[in-house]
């Protein structure tokens, strides 16, 4: 008995290690997308849950902010610009001694002016003479920064970086690229299963073979066709209908195969009964096969939709990179090149691109898994 418990404890521990290793990367990305961009650049995301001590440099305001009270000139403001919830505990006025003073104490600059910094960043800078310089002076602070999260990065990425538009574009690519194959393949699979015609077996074998043909084999010829077509009719070679058809082509074999596999399992008697009753193939298809196939349609829809949504290669080759056509993955890749060090943009952008797949994943996981398993057991 004791041995079993020990082994169960070991299993739990091992599984826990796997789970942590698998979730940590995504979790870190998500947390980072919610952090202030300045903090994100200098500290690891795992420090964001605890109060951290940071050393920072701020600049006071210049002469424009001064007021005269009695014999003295004052500049009163806040180092952070506004109260950010940070707590200053020490500060300094020279780079040699950045934590010389306690908060609340008065520090002397070299020119004899005097500054007092308070815990929340408020400061009073006092001078006997009028302030002359437009630029303020540097103040070094050691502050405790409590955990804080913000949605600023999302606003920036969606509206300024153009990811909002790319998001819509991706929908405009993914929905037809999923629905068109589903429509034409369901008729195709029906014919392969229930209609007798010459060459059916060869067609089926072609589908099986096409399942594994790498899409790289198609890129160059299709691109040539599109370019010729565009030149011939004076339209753009890269367009939404173009990419829909490309995705339809690349998803056709797997969609047909999965549907064929499903339709095969429907009882033959039912089809024959419908035929005896005088139903045409089209009636049988619409009134019997489609309603019965809804769960299979759901699984295939999800698989193909996620495939298209997550695709990069087809989008790069068959769509332009200007804002009205670029898809999320291509945009993200572009940001990786141009904003490689701006982790607030990258993490947030990546998370935006993941929202739809994650939503589908968590709400329709059952169908997703069913599709994958159905596709694999046979394929």
């Amino acid at each position, binding site marked *: 008995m004791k041995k079993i418990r020990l082994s169960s404890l070991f299993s739990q521990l091992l599984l826990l290690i796997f789970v942590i290793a698998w979730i940590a990367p995504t979790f870190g990305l998500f947390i980072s997308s919610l952090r202030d961009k300045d903090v994100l650049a200098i500290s690891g995301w795992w420090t964001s849950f605890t109060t951290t001590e940071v050393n920072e440099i701020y600049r006071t305001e210049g002469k424009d902010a001064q007021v005269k009270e009695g014999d003295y000139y004052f500049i009163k403001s806040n180092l952070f610009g506004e109260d950010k919830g940070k707590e200053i505990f020490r500060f300094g006025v020279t780079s040699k001694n950045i934590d010389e003073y306690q908060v609340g104490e008065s520090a002397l600059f070299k020119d004899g002016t005097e500054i007092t910094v308070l815990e929340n960043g408020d400061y009073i800078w006092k001078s006997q003479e009028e302030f002359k310089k437009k630029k303020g002076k540097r103040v070094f602070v050691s502050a405790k920064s409590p955990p804080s999260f913000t949605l600023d990065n999302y606003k920036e990425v969606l509206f300024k970086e153009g990811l909002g538009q790319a998001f819509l574009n991706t929908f405009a690519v993914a929905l037809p690229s999923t629905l068109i194959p589903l429509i034409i393949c369901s*008729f195709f699979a029906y014919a392969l299963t229930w209609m007798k015609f010459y060459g059916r077996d060869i067609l089926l074998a072609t589908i099986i073979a096409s399942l594994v043909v790498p899409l790289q084999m198609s890129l160059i010829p299709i691109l040539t066709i599109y370019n010729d077509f565009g030149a011939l009719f004076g339209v753009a070679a890269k367009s939404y209908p173009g990419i829909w058809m490309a995705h339809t082509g690349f998803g056709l074999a797997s969609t*047909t195969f999965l549907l064929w596999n499903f339709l095969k399992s429907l009882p033959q008697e039912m089809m024959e009964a419908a035929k005896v009753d005088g139903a045409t193939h089209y009636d049988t298809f619409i009134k019997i096969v489609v309603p019965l196939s809804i769960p299979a349609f759901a699984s295939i829809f999800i698989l193909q939709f996620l495939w298209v949504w997550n695709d990069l290669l087809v989008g790069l080759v068959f769509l332009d990179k200007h804002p009205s056509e670029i898809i999320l993955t291509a945009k993200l890749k572009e940001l990786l090149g141009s904003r490689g060090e701006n982790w607030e943009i990258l993490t947030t952008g*990546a998370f935006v691109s993941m929202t739809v797949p994650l939503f589908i994943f968590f709400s329709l996981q059952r169908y997703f898994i069913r599709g*994958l398993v159905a596709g694999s057991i046979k394929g």
Partner: protein
Amino acid sequence: MSIFSLALTVLIGVLVFVAFFHFSNFLLDYFQLKTPKKIAWENSIRVVIFIGPAFIVLFVFIIYPVFETIRLSFYDKLGDNFVGLYNYAWAIKDPDFKRSIINNLGWLIVVPTLSTFFGLVIANLADRIWWGSIAKSIIFMPMAISFVGAGVIWKFMYDYRGPGDQQIGLLNAIAVALGFEPQAWLTIPIWNNFFLMAIMIWIQTGLALVIFSAALRTIPKETLDAARIDGASELKIFWKIIIPYLEQTILVIWTIITLLVLKVFDIIYAMTNGQWQTEVLANLMYDWMFRGGGDTGRGSVLAFCILIGVIPILAWNLYRHKQDQKV
């Protein structure tokens, strides 16, 4: 484009296909042809309507391109002049090509093996633990994410700062905490390939996991119970009963992941673009499709190399399909 014009485009695009099927079938039913000879005609027309669109797409996007790509591999840069084996001779001498082949082989060995292994182990662990299904969901989740998204996630994991600075990448933070020097992981030749493979393993383990989970349920409980009563250890049950029972499934998962790995493009393109000796065939092919205005000959040779890798799986699938049809 605004959201409305996009939605309209989408709607029209989909409706065209619905309309085609509806009206063609409607017309066929309208002119009911009931004499025996005509019924045969009707059936043939119906078959054409049902398989026509799909067949055209299949032909234009898969069948024709396969032969065209093979043809183009014997032609020059623009596809105008026959050059025999010139492109193949170029490939054999090209150092990038050599590097790609070596790397692709590495990917083919490491990724399917480890993904399958992890998937199998996790499926076994999770089946016996009450919070197993939550664990499975978490490990499966990367399957839903794009390779580029995963690329960003892992680029952040591998982020490198100088030895004095605070590390913001988790891997370097761990390395520093353990007393090592921080490393720019993705720029260390040979090893960086493994850091890229880790991303693919991270994604594909989920696939292996769910398929194994489904397959594990088909093992008769009596067999397992009998083994336990006989005093077999869990480890022994795993090796002696579960693995042999799942042989077919293991093979299937292996081929699925192998197919994916042969085509691996997004991860390399997003993370290193083949620099620091991480080049693979698919990335090199994309490169040649556009480099210097595009070289269809060399691009086609590279695509053909990927196809060659697929052929054993293709043959095996067709063989199995034939066996199934006989039953």
